[in-house]
């Protein structure tokens, strides 16, 4: 028995060789030449390759050394993430002209739910065309798109007519489209999963479909159930618009329970470093700091305090966490410790009214109106 497929209209927009194309756009000398964005050094990795470079077999995530070996005239370009983010912003603005249901996956791709769109256009295919046209107009870059009834199929479809093309998989073709699809093209099937699927005789969507739910679950666990549904065109995952981060945390579970505070401090230092790194990455700072303690009997305790200032540096986090740790005696030995920062200064960041606190907590004060 088949579950009815919920009909949504999802577009997956993917920029073609985004970083490399931006570099070629900004520097016309690179136009038509094989370029790789990333480092050419011993440990360098290609983060993006232009289509000219791909002809030589250069791929992203390839080591710089290997890429050079494949293509002699390959030009390495240092990545400029601010510039990519700037263009990404322009592209997202275009998306929002059509719908508010935009889920960005990275700087260069996003899912759009256009079932109900601002233009009242019933054809997702035409919308995708318009979006790609607008992107070309505004940024000069090419985008590809996949259009279908769920995120999974849309994502797979966007790869089909790449570069600078689009592919619609209408509801009635979804099942046959998935059946003929090579298993390694399934989003989420990487090198390891592919090998496992092959060993079970699964080479295409059709093979996958012939396996029973129980069989897949037994051999592939949770993802087995996921693929069982996916190949039947069932995916309920909604397009989730980007939301502002409310808190940021890191935690560690220990191999062995710890009872000494001295050891806990050592662990907390690692966790604080991680939290500080994440805060700085998101360019936010937090005012409220929470220490999470899970005891060996799995009971959970949280201790938190709110500071007068936004903090983001490791030292300050650790200093405050220390206070929380020594606030009262541990009830038992501890199996997990976590630090979370909330009350983040997202607003300030958005308005850019005052520059986000840098490495320290130097804060521009305001008159108290």
């Amino acid at each position, binding site marked *: 028995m088949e579950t009815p497929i919920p009909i949504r209209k999802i577009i997956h927009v993917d920029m073609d060789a985004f970083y490399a194309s931006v570099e070629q756009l900004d520097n016309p000398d690179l136009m038509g030449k094989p370029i790789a964005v990333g480092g050419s050094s011993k440990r360098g990795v290609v983060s993006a390759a232009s289509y000219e470079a791909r002809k030589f077999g250069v791929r992203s995530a390839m080591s710089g050394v290997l890429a050079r070996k494949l293509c002699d005239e390959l030009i390495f370009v240092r990545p400029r993430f601010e510039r990519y983010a700037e263009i990404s912003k322009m592209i997202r603005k275009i998306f929002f002209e059509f719908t508010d249901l935009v889920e960005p996956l990275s700087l260069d791709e996003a899912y759009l739910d256009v079932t109900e769109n601002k233009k009242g256009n019933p054809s997702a295919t035409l919308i995708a065309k318009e979006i790609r046209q607008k992107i070309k107009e505004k940024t000069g870059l090419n985008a590809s798109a996949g259009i279908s009834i769920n995120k999974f199929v849309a994502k797979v479809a966007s790869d089909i007519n790449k570069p600078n093309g689009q592919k619609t998989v209408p509801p009635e073709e979804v099942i046959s489209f998935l059946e003929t699809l090579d298993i390694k093209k399934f989003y989420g099937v990487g090198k390891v999963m592919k090998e496992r699927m092959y060993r079970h005789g699964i080479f295409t969507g059709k093979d996958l479909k012939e396996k029973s739910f129980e069989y897949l679950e037994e051999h592939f666990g949770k993802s087995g159930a996921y693929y069982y549904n996916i190949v039947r065109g069932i995916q309920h995952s909604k397009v989730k618009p980007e939301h502002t981060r409310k808190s940021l945390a890191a935690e560690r579970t220990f191999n062995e329970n710890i009872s000494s505070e001295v050891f806990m401090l050592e662990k907390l230092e690692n966790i604080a470093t991680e939290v500080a790194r994440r805060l700085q990455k998101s360019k936010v700072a937090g005012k409220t700091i929470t220490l999470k303690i899970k005891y060996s009997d799995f009971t959970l305790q949280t201790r938190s305090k709110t500071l007068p*200032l936004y903090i983001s540096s490791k030292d300050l986090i650790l200093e405050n966490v220390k206070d929380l740790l020594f606030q009262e005696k541990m009830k038992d030995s501890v199996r997990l410790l976590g630090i979370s920062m909330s009350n983040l200064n997202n607003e300030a960041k958005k308005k850019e009214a005052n*520059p*986000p606190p840098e*490495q320290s907590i130097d804060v521009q*004060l305001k*008159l108290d109106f």
Partner: protein
Amino acid sequence: MKFIVSSSYLLKQLQVLGGIINNNNTLPILDNFLFELDKNSLKVSASDLETTITSKLNVESNEKGAVCIPARLLLDTLKTFPEQPLTFTVEDNHTVEISSSSGKYALAYADGEDFPNAIELKEPSATKIQGDILATAISKTIFAAGNDDLRPVMSGVFFQFSTEELTFVATDAHKLVKYTRSDVKASETAEFIMPKKPLNLLKGILAGSEEDITIEYNESNAKFTFENTEMVCRLIDGKYPNYEAVIPKENPNKLTIDRNQFLNSVRRVSIFSNKTTHQIRLKIAGAELNVSAEDIDYSNKADERLTCAYQGDDIQIGFNSRFLTEMLNNLTSDEVSLEMSLPNRAGILTPVDGLDEGEQVTMLVMPVMLNN
């Protein structure tokens, strides 16, 4: 409709009015000057809907009529003429013909009725002030006004009139300027918030003018009348923050220093400050002011020592150098004093000398909370 006018006289007036015209208007009619002719008197207006400014010119004519003439086109043409009489003739085919000694030019015009009417002020109060004084009041304050759309009241300059003095205040919550003139008085108390754009225009027109300007105002609009020009503008709606409450009353630490020396030092040191925070550090002990900055990201560092007069406890306080430079630049005195209480309270910057009788300037700047 036909009139004759001197080219440079017309250009001079139109350039002033042109300042109010936006570069991209949603209403195309606002790209025009409105010409209203009544025999020998020609009224020219320009508007951005918020502000309308009108000048009266003397011309040679005995006709009446009203037309809208494209501003850009007219200004560009007038700029090229050497001084000479120009004849404007409104033709039947919806064009205005200008004839000069060199030739003829035709511009399409729109009907005068299409131009939005200027706001009429109902039951206004009035105050007179010398043009130059108003220009000074504007230039002393306007730089401190904010740009935050979320607090529109702070994007303007607060006019506070009383029977004792006139006060002008601007703030963006980081810095604040209060400019008071006790030598000018209003007949009754009044308060309103003027947007920046018309003030900038007034500042330019009025600088150095010894003529009196009449300010009329009610709850929603203000009108400035001087010589042959009047400007009507919409006020910013809302309540101005209670700025008096944030001016610290007790400031035991007082630094007095040569303004130019201080300004140059801050400028130099700030080059070495962090590029986003522009933060510099003032350390004052005894009769020595230490100005320093550091950009940890680039290992840049600067440190200067200045002699000063200082009363109070040793203090260390951080400031955004851009605010300090702006404020020190705006002052004209030889010496300034900076009064402080605590490193997390506003510093009060005032000129020590060079003020007119009845003139008072108070500048507030909020510090940067230093990490160590």
